[in-house]
Structure formats: C-alpha cells, structure tokens
C-alpha cells in the first residue's frame, strides 16, 4: 500500500505549525492587487496580514485567482513520484474553481502514473473549516486507514463541519460575490451584524441579524455550542481578519466559557478568504451536527 499525502490549498488557513504537525501540503492560489499577481502564502511570505488588510481598509480592492493548473501539476507530480497517493481537500466548489482544475490535472497525472491514486474532494467548506477537514483526513491516515476509507469518511462527514462567522460589514463579501444574503441584509445596517454559515452547498449564507459586535460574537459561539452538542471532538478553530487583540481575546474567552474547551486553535484568516471577507471578520469552526440549511 502506498502512503497517503493530504493536500489542501491557500483557502485552508492552516499555519505552518499545523501543516508540519499533520504533514499536510498546500497548493497556492494568487491574490491580485493593482494588476500584480502574488502567490497566496499561508505563511505571509510576500506581504504581512496587516499589510493586506490595511490595503482593503483603504478602500482598494484585492481580488483572487484559483490554483493554477501548473501548480497542481507540480505538486501532484512531485508527490506521486515520491510514492504517495494524494487526497486533495479543496476550497468549496461554489467559491472557487480550484477543485475542478484539480480533478482535471489529477486525471492527467494518473494517466501518466497508473499506479498512483489522486482524489479531489469538494468539502463544501472554506477557510479553517476546510483546513480542519484536511487535519481530520491526515489523522485518519495516521491511524492507518486506507485511501478509500479516508475518502469515504470525509465524504460522509464533511457536512458535520460547522462554520459561524460574523463581519462588521457585508460589503466585502457582496463585492466579491461570495455570500448569499436575503433582502433583510440590504441597505445600510448601522451596527447590525450578520451571522454567516456555510450551507449544504458550501455557500456562505447570511442567516441571522444581531445588533452590536460583542453580541454577534456571543451569538456565533452560542450557535457553535448548539451545533457541537454531543460531539466528542471538542477542538474549536477561531479565525480573525486582523481584529484588535481585545476582540480576539473576548471571542476566545467566550469559546472557553460557553463551549467549555481548552483545545482552541487561533489563526489569522489567510489572504484568499481575507480578500473576500474583509478586515474585521471573525469565525469559529467545530465538528458537530450535520449542516442542513440551504441558503
């Protein structure tokens, strides 16, 4: 049996420490600012998180491009030649075309290396939810599960990953075309914060209005707690797009207090998700009940 390598992409927002720990590789998308394309590094090699978010705060647009085919070709070829089978945990297919490009390239590579297996999974999830699923896959691999068992488990369980995010403004997401929001979220909302989930199609969907920043953070933690009832895996991922430390502390303390867990992993929301969601976003992820809502 060939060893298995888990690959994800720039949307997964997994920092180096976690990628190393779980031996996860990632393929890079690109950010585009002033017509200049830059690889979207999860280790902020080309610009700092602060720099990216300050550009957006200044009103300038940062756009993104999906993982280029040659990036997949290089990554898959390298891993296959090293003797690995590959499971690629992509960014939600409704938010990025990367999963399709990955499938195309995988077919080509598998033609060249008939002994290799490459499967591309649309986890219907992005950001750290995607990363969290990749970690789960890596853990299953470490437990000695077979390629097919890992793929089957992820396909079966991916909708049990729950996302609850809130933003100061929906403008960034609307501009990027990456949120579904009903008429309730139009107009100037003055202090009203939306709660955004990832629905069964992997689409970001604004489901609820909350007044005030702290109240909105309370709400996403409460909603995650509800979703995590009965769940054994108590890990919670907390992401933020360059928020003040007090806000991050508030959110983390809330998670500790309400969900009652100390297994909290905190990270910046990376360049790709950040470019869509905008500065000030916060998000929490955890395994739990199956998402049933379709926005």
């Amino acid at each position, binding site marked *: 049996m060939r060893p298995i390598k888990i690959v994800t992409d720039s949307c997964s927002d997994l920092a180096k420490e976690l990628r190393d720990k779980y031996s996860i590789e990632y393929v890079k998308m690109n950010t585009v600012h002033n017509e200049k394309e830059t690889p979207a590094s999860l280790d902020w090699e080309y610009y700092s998180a602060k720099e990216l978010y300050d550009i957006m705060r200044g009103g300038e647009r940062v756009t993104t491009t999906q993982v280029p085919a040659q990036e997949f070709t290089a990554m898959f070829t390298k891993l296959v030649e090293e003797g690995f089978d590959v499971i690629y945990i992509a960014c939600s297919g409704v938010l990025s075309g990367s999963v399709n490009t990955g499938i195309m390239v995988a077919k080509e590579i598998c033609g060249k290396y008939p002994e290799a297996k490459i499967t591309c999974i649309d986890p219907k999830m992005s950001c750290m939810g995607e990363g969290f699923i990749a970690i789960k896959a890596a853990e299953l691999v470490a437990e000695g599960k077979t390629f097919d068992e890992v793929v089957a488990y992820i396909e079966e369980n991916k909708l049990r990953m729950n996302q609850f995010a809130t933003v100061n403004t929906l403008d960034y997401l609307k501009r990027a075309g990456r949120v579904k929001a009903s008429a309730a979220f*139009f107009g100037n909302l003055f202090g009203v914060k939306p709660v955004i989930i990832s629905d069964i199609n992997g689409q970001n969907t604004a489901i609820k*209005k909350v*007044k005030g920043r702290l*109240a909105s953070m309370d709400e996403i933690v409460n909603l995650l707690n509800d979703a995590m009832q009965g769940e054994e895996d108590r890990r919670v991922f907390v992401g933020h797009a360059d928020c003040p430390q007090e806000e991050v502390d508030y959110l983390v303390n809330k998670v500790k207090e309400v969900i009652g867990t100390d297994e909290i992993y905190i990270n910046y929301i990376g360049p790709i998700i950040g470019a869509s969601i905008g500065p000030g976003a916060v998000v929490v992820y955890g395994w739990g009940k199956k998402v049933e809502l379709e926005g």
Partner: protein
Amino acid sequence: MGTQNLTGEMFAQMVQNGAANLRNNAQTVNDLNVFPIPDGDTGDNMCRTIEGGASVANAEGDVPVSEVCSKVAEGMLLSARGNSGVILSQFFEGINLGMKDFETADVKAVAEAFRAGVKQAYSSVITPTEGTILTVMREATDVATSKITEDSTLEQFFKAYIKEMYLSLDRTPELLPVLKEAGVIDSGGAGFSFIIEGMYKALKGEEITSDKMITTVSAEAPIGNFDENTEMEFGYCTEALVQLRSEKTDVEAFSVDALIEYLESIGGDSIVAFKTGTKVKLHVHTFTPDKVLAFCLTFGEFITVKIENMSIQHSETTVENRFERKEVVSNERKKFGVVAVAGGDGLKEMFTSLGADAIVDGQQTMNPSSEDFIKAFDAVNADTIIVLPNNSNILLAAKQAGELYKDSDIRVVESTTIAEGYAALTMLDLTSEDIDVIIDDLKMAIGGVTTGLVTYAVRDTSQDGFEIKKDDWLGFSKKTILSVEKDKVSAATALLDSIDKTGKEVIIAIAGKDATAEELSAVHEYASKNFPLVEFYEVDGGQDIYSFIFAVE
C-alpha cells in the same frame, strides 16, 4: 324656553361651531405642553380631527340626526390624528351609535348618546389614564346627565355639562402628576372643552366664524416661480372627493378599480382611490387633470376638487402628498409590507432604504390621520402590513386605521420614537415568514433601544431637578430631562454621558434640520473618545424640532 329636540340640521351646525371654536383656540391648546419644548400639537391634531367631521356635516332641511351623526363620525374616524384626536373621534362614534335610528333626539337621548360616547372613548385606549380628556368627558357627562329632569332643555343640559367640564379640567393636574409638575391643565381636555363650548353656542344661536384655515396645509399659497418659460416637469397633484350618483352609476356596486385603471391609462401616478360609503376619494399626479375630472363626472358629482401645479415649489406638494410609494405602480400583492411614519427627507429616505414600502409623512407636530395610514396601506398592497408609528402620539391613529382597514392583516408595532422604529427596521428579517416571530423580533429590537432627544426650551421652568431658561438646550430620554446646557453640542454630549450604556454597543445619531455637519462631528468625536467600545453612526435625518435623535442600543 329652550330646545327640546335636537335635529340633524342643528347637530350639524353644532359640530361646525365646535370645530370653529377649537380652530380659533388651537394654539392655546398646543401651548399646554407638559414638556417645555416646541412639539405641542394637541390643538392642531384635535382640530384636524373634528374638521373631518365638520366638513361633511352640512345637513339642510329634515335630515335625521342619526344620519348627521353617522356622517360626522365617519369623517372623524378617517381624519383622526394624535391620541386626543383618536379619543375624540371615538367619542363621536359613540354618539353616533347612541343616536342610531333617531329622527330627532330629546335631552334624554342626547345624554344617553353622550354616555355611549364616553364608553366608546374609554374603550379606544387599552389603559385609560385619568386626568385627561377622558376624565373631562366622563365627569361632565355624568353630572349633566344626573341633573336631567322631565322638562330639561338641551340648553340646560349643555350649561350643566360645561360647568362640570371646566371644574373637571381644572382638576386634571391633581390626577396627573406630570401636569402638576409642568403647571398646565390637560391639553386634550382643553381642546374638548373648546369644542363643547362651540357646540353650546350654536345651540344658543351664536355662530362662530374662524378665519384661520387649518385644513389646507399650504396656508401660504406657493409663490409664483412658474412663468412662461418654466418647464412643466411634474404635472398636477389632483385630489377630489366625488359623490357617487344613482342616476349615473350603480352606487352600491361601484368599484374604484375601473377608475384606477383609467388613471393609469392616462399616465397618472401616485394613484390613490378609495370608496367610503357612497363617496370616492381620489388622489393622482397627472399632466391631464381635465381628463380625470371628465371621467369622474361619468359616475358622480364633485364635492371638492383641488388641483395644484407641482412644478411650482415642488417641495410644498410633498407635504400635500402625505405618503409616497416606493415604486410608482406595483400592483402585485406581496406577502409582507412595511409602513413607517417619518418626517424630513433624510428620515424618509433612511426608512425607505431599510425596506419600508410606504412612508406616512409625520412631522413631530404634524401627526398623520387614520386616513393617511389607509392610503399607505392601499399603496403597499400586502397580505400583512407591519406598521411602525414611531411616535407615541400616533399609535392610536395607526391602530384605528388598522381596525378600519379590512384588506390586510395590519400589525402595529408600538415604536414610540423614530429611534425605536429605526432600530426595529434594521433588525427586520422576513425570512421566517411567521408574522408572530417577526413581530417578536421587532419588539425585542425596540426593547434594546434607549432614545435620546435634543431640543430647546420654549419657556422658563424647573423640571427633573433642573432650572431651565427659555432657549436652553435640553437633552432628555423617556420624558426625563437629563441635560440642560447653553449650547446644542454640550446638551447632546451630556445627554450621552447620562444615558446608561451598559450592554449598549451602537449609537446612531440622527441629525435634525438645524444640526450642522460640524455639530454632528463634534458629537461624534466626543463619543469616539469617551465611549471607544461603542460604534457611532451618523445619519442625516433632516427632522424638525429635534436637533439630534440618538438611538443607543
């Protein structure tokens, strides 16, 4: 000698005289304001209410008194404005019920009808407050009724009525502490007294004339900025009250649908047409009012017609057109609609942008009538209509309109300030499609708001522990004065200091007409510096009276 029997003609004259007497004294009633600020409007509201009855009370000859009462009551229900106005309209509705089937009414019948009026008035408010118009009408009715003997005349009844009415009015400060503190008698009771006084004078043959016309909004005719070269941009605002005529149409079966269709076919917009009884009220903006008039003559005769060139001082006519449709013609019936009351262009725009389908124009001292609401309900055309009155003095008129309106489920959410209505609307979410859930959410949003208001004092007084001089700037919340300063910005910032901000995260500052951009940013700066955890948003509301309205939530 005196009058034994009240005829329809006499009752009509009495109502008109009552209206005229109040009209002459409306300002006196306005000034009986508990708060030392320029928002008193009880006199105007009651006046517009009774005029809705007086304008249709034009009985001649042997018209039964019951018929006149019915007309008066119907007119007043539609024109009712402000809480005192609604109570007044319900009083006359009670008289109408009491007078049913009477050709003429003797003193006993009149007294019974007045009792029915009091009962009806009390039932129109959920928790009747004593020391108000209600007390005055009840006590006067009780005493005058108890003094009736076999050969009492109407004059004697009214004389006794008036004597007790004034005694009762003088006692209102004893019953209602806010009146005592402000050193005034109840304004609604005073307005009522002027009406009864006027009615009594009609009985004695004294006709009261009034040169103050309050019903026409533009007391000053628009100045001619329309000349031989002005572009005819806006057409005519055309309003008519049409009496349907049996010789021209089947009055019973007549429906305004054909009329609306015709008005649309000639390019009219802002169309409102509805039938009440055997009359049709009509409002349309058109370039060809001649066609409108000719069409109306095919089914009736005009009672009144008003045509105004909207290209002349266009802004004036928006006052006349007391509601605006979001989309000019959207005949498709919706599941949900929202009607909000707002005055000032900025506020109207704000409510519209947040999803209100129709705005009923309501300045602080210019309360809309039940009829204004009904027109808005028609324009919205939805199964369920959520109403945000945004003023405690408009609640009853909105509710009365809801009861009169049968085509939609009308849900009045008790928003008592612009800030509350605004906060509610920002949280509006119709996705559940469950009206009870939706309304609960709105109520919860309102519960989380503290409203702060800034305006100036119109008289010297002392209240809530403050010595107030005329022209001082006042900041207050929930009818309690929290700051008194010599300038607007200080009053605003001191007010924000005093408001309990525990658990509050957002301040929305709605700047009024007289607040400058500098004053607004001065307040903003102060808030950012002193309450760094609270988000501060600026809105240009353009409202009268209040320089700032704060929604702290």
